[in-house]
């Protein structure tokens, strides 16, 4: 870990982090407000049979309770996309992007080990993801305050939801950082990382909408975030174990791969 490199990374990304965090606070605030305003209409819509019942269970949530609505909001493509700005965008470019730009050469000419460089980037990704998930969680709390539904939300369990959501994106960040550490160019690192996320997302959505494909859901990392259970104070310990395992494996692999590989000359 290198303090100067961490400070450099923070200075480079702080404004982007602020913008993404503000957007996530806004999105989180909207979730309880939308449920408060349209919850009954959603209930009527699905009761009428206009939409298949599975559509109301997207991402393990539902439209009929505040915690269910929040759960849907946490895995909504907008929230996922905003979180991926750092979980994939930053993590995938941290090493491969610097290599492609030629700045990794300047960086690695300093007295910083490859492992130290990787761990610094990993720490930065950890902080960024923690902040963006905190923003989403804080937004959700604000929305519950605005609508007067803090007790119904189970606000005391928001830290569990934050941890569960953060671990999901830490896992994606760890995979993206591994791809970055193993690549010389940015496009493969981004491509592999995004493909991993998209396949994971597709399996979860497909499984939640089509009962015959439900067996695919355990192969998706999104399956291991259950916002509704977290807010009820009944998180699944196994979810945390699975996500932690993915993080540990990806970090360990990167710590082996990055120091051993050759760093190609800038192109």
């Amino acid at each position: 870990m290198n303090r100067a490199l961490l400070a450099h990374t923070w200075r480079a990304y702080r404004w982007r982090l602020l913008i993404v965090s503000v957007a996530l606070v806004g999105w989180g605030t909207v979730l309880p407000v939308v449920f408060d305003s349209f919850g009954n209409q959603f209930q009527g819509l699905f009761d009428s049979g206009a939409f298949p019942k599975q559509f109301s269970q997207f991402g393990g949530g539902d439209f009929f309770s505040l915690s269910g609505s929040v759960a849907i909001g946490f895995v909504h493509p907008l929230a996922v996309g905003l979180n991926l700005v750092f979980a994939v965008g930053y993590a995938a470019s941290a090493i491969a992007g610097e290599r492609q730009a030629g700045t990794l050469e300047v960086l690695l000419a300093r007295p910083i080990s490859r492992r130290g460089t990787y761990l610094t980037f990993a720490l930065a990704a950890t902080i960024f993801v923690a902040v963006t998930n905190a923003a989403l969680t804080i937004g959700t709390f604000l929305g519950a305050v605005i609508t007067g539904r803090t007790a119904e939300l189970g606000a005391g369990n928001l830290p569990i939801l934050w941890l569960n959501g953060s671990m999901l994106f830490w896992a994606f960040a760890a995979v993206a950082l591994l791809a970055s550490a193993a690549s010389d160019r940015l496009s493969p690192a981004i491509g592999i990382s995004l493909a991993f996320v998209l396949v994971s997302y597709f399996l979860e959505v497909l499984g939640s909408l089509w009962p015959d494909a439900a067996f695919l859901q355990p192969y998706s990392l999104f399956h291991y975030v259950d916002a509704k259970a977290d807010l009820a104070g009944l998180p699944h310990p196994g979810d945390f174990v699975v996500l932690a395992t993915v993080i540990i494996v990806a970090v360990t692999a990167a710590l082996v791969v990055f120091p051993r590989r050759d760093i190609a000359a800038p192109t």
Partner: protein
Amino acid sequence: MAVIETRGLGKRYGRSVESLALSDLTIDVREGEIFGFLGPNGAGKSTTIRLLLGFLHATTGGATVLGGDIERDSVAIRRRVGYLPGGIAFWDGLTGERLLDELADLSGRPPVRRAELTDRLELSAATLRRPVRDYSRGMRQKVGIVQALQHDPELAILDEPTEGLDPLMQRAFYEYLDELRAAGRTIFFSSHILSEVERVCDRVAIVRAGRLVALEEIPALLARRKRNVELRLAGPAPALAGVAGVSDVRVADGRLWCRLEGDVGPFLAAIAGAPITDMTIEPARLEEAFLEFYETEDEPPPPPAVPPVPAAAGGSVSG
């Protein structure tokens, strides 16, 4: 003491012949010298530098820099080394000043030479307050030089350092290198610009197709080069056949051309009394020495073809 010592250092990227980037490089760079590392693009210069700094892992041999092993002690080595990459890239959103501050922080040593470097290279405070993305090629190169030397490293590894600098700046930079040498700093100077290597370096290694083909003191290298001689004659040409150091004699239209190598005494004795109206001797240039190594053979020279190193040179040669 050898600041850089390589022993049979080699790098291969795959199994094919073309994948051999560097082969069996054995050199010693002494403390307090400016060591020229010469070769055309693709000869193995950058590969050598990248091996020394730990960017690449050697497939054969090994090396020490400042007494530390390049594999085991890479971090400790880089704490004492300044590096200017060829075609350097920066974080372009930063101002020059901020960039130099951050790079000094990352080096972990105070930028004690920054003020004198920016002064010599005419990087004004106003310039350094502008974002690097607005800099010209030459200004970027100046910032690159400053970042490599600002923390007063014991060894500076400079890859094509004068690229993009105008002649005045080049001269100022050469003078600064002379001062660094006088202060006991060691410079590893990679270049394909022969005139600057001849101007600033004490010794030079010439690499070709990943192999070392020469390692000598520059004066010794030049002394062994053939000089071109032209005589204008008002009468019969002097007999130069068999004169020591003289070769390629041609006579036509009242002129004599020949090539002269080594001691000029026998040549001067042979032309004494000849009806010479004018004489031109082109001094030996490093360029000729360099081209000689590159023009003689298409294939990389095998080990026996490596020119012998005079004892005074103190280095070793490996083919």
